[in-house]
């Protein structure tokens, strides 16, 4: 049996994408790591006795400061001449990364700490009962962005965290999805081979908050990528060096949205088609911006245009 460093038996919900994401990251990183983790689901479900999942050193920081605590750990290891002993991995959810933790993360990037920061993006504050965050997608129904007579849900677009990291001159930035485990692990390994700050954002479905079938976590995650809503790419020294191509024709966003209760209102309420169109536009822009369509498919597209 494969030996994991993020162990089974923790108390995550059925079909939790974040638990899977954390296991992929930690297993890929190997035993010589020190991990920090912001307040959130991961901290809560992975650190309780006797169901602790961590076979590597782990410190729950607070909500806002995973990157800063990690900065202290990394700098002290250096000062003590122990930097070769362990890599430092800072972790947080989307709220702990893009909202309350952004200041500490910016400082970590700016000072150039040799730390891999992993954001497990399940697109809302799930631990406190599903409130919107800076990474909640447009029109998503949450407890603080409820849809209703005048509202379609979350009014804001996802913060572009990779671009924010890139603006700090972070040498390695990647997005990933639990739908592609080998890709997640390859990116973690590559990141850890690079000195300096690194940022990886892993898309991790949350059946509870997304109101999706726990059995379909991987399918839902895959559809986010295949529709173009969650572009998977690597960015090195500010340049996108690799993207995960998606089969053409790209799946319409409706296929992804319909599997999730957080978007159900778009298909029930009159006028929802217009909102779905807006979301399709977001996907289309991603496809264009990152060149997500596969080569073969692009040829088809070009020919179709000629005709």
């Amino acid at each position, binding site marked *: 049996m494969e030996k994991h460093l993020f162990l089974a038996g923790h108390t995550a919900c059925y079909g939790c994408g974040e638990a899977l994401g954390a296991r992929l990251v930690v297993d890929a990183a190997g035993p010589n790591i020190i991990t920090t983790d912001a307040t959130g689901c991961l901290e809560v479900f992975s650190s309780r006795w006797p169901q602790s999942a961590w076979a590597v050193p782990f410190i729950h920081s*607070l909500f806002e400061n995973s990157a800063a605590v990690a900065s202290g750990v990394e700098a002290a290891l250096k000062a003590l001449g122990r930097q070769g002993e362990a890599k430092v991995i800072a972790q947080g959810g989307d709220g702990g990364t893009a*909202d309350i933790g*952004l200041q500490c993360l910016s400082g970590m990037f700016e000072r150039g700490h040799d730390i891999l920061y992993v954001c497990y993006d399940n697109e809302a504050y799930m631990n*406190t009962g599903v*409130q919107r965050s*800076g990474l909640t997608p447009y029109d998503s129904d949450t407890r*603080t*962005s*409820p849809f*209703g007579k005048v509202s379609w849900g979350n009014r804001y677009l996802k913060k572009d965290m990779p671009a924010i990291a890139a603006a700090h001159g972070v040498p390695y930035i990647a997005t990933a999805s639990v739908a592609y485990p080998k890709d997640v692990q390859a990116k973690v390994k590559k990141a850890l081979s690079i000195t300096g700050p690194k940022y990886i954002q892993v898309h991790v479905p949350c059946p509870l908050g997304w109101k999706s079938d726990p059995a379909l976590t991987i399918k839902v995650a895959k559809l986010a990528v295949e529709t173009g809503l969650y572009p998977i790419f690597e960015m090195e020294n500010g340049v996108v060096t690799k993207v995960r191509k998606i089969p053409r024709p790209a799946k319409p966003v409706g296929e992804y949205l319909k599997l999730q209760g957080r978007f159900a209102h778009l298909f029930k309420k009159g006028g929802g088609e217009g909102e779905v169109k807006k979301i399709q536009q977001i996907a289309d822009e991603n496809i264009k911006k990152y060149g997500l369509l596969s080569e073969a498919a692009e040829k088809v597209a070009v020919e179709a245009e000629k005709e």
Partner: protein
Amino acid sequence: MSPKIKNPLPPGNYFFEGNQACAEAAIAAGCRFFAGYPISPSSEIMERLSWRLPEVGGVFIQMEDEIASISAVIGAVWAGARAMTATSGPGLSLMLENIGYAIITETPCVIVDVQRAGPSTGQATRPYDGDIMQVKWGSSGDYQVIALAPWSVQEVYDLTIRAFNLAELYRVPVFVMSDAALAHLREDCRIPEGVDIVGRTKAKGVPHFGTEGPVGVPPMASFGEEEGLIITGSTHDKSGYRKTQDPNIQKDLVDRLNEKVLSNAKEIIQTEEHFLKGAEIVVVAYGLVARAALAAVKEARLGGINVGLLRLKTLWPFPKEEIRALRARRIIVPELNRGQLVREVERVTKVEVVYVNRVDGEVMGPGEILEAIKKQ
């Protein structure tokens, strides 16, 4: 001025949990701005306001953290709104610098603190009287705040409304000290048709940051009222201009920030007496614990013990005269902590003071208090 405004919620009896009652009270009190950040066990307040405020023409903003939440509230108040935020202990810790700022700039605002067991992240969903001292002493310097302690869902409603009025009357942050148990306790809540509201005191051309006398509350302008507003967290003169090297200005400001509350303590402080006449033993309690205390007192009286209850609805300013007036031979102070407010009781009385504490994140029952009453 105390105009009655129509309650946007139809009057009647509602079966509310504490957090819902709090949100509705804010709306009834004329609050039209809420900025907050998710934190258990307070999140239901913001969740309800996220749709209720837009319904009544108000603004709800989810901020990126608690520092931003209280900051946005301060900005909104100076723009002319009645504003509130809600949080729990760890979030309150992040707000503390801004609370000091609200105190020195005399920004009227309401902060609901749904307390949970700490320190730090502690037990996010368990009740605790953990912030009794944090709200009083957490920010730097010398200052007074007002803190109210409801013991029922009805009182969460009533005291949240009162908090807005006190904030305007004295231009201070006012805390509503709820807790995880009261937040999620569901019981009858009577919603009145109209609510008495204290408006913001306006006086054109009068300084906004100082008064002639040493204890007054200056009138307050909003941005855009052509009053030349200069607002600063630094020490300032009566007009709001920064003056940090003048010992008299610092002294006058600090004295007034304190005295404007302390000299009005009689108007601010509310207590409730149960069987106090001639009581040999008095339980002094607040919040949900006071309900257990009242049950214990009644039980003990049936057994022939001459015991009464003094319930504190106001924690800060501390009701020292009310405590001092107790002619008992023993005072019992039950709290969901290792003893916070009890030390204030000890400071003001010569009577023997007994601690009854619970720190395991469970609510206090009458049994523990009854035991302390019976102990000779």
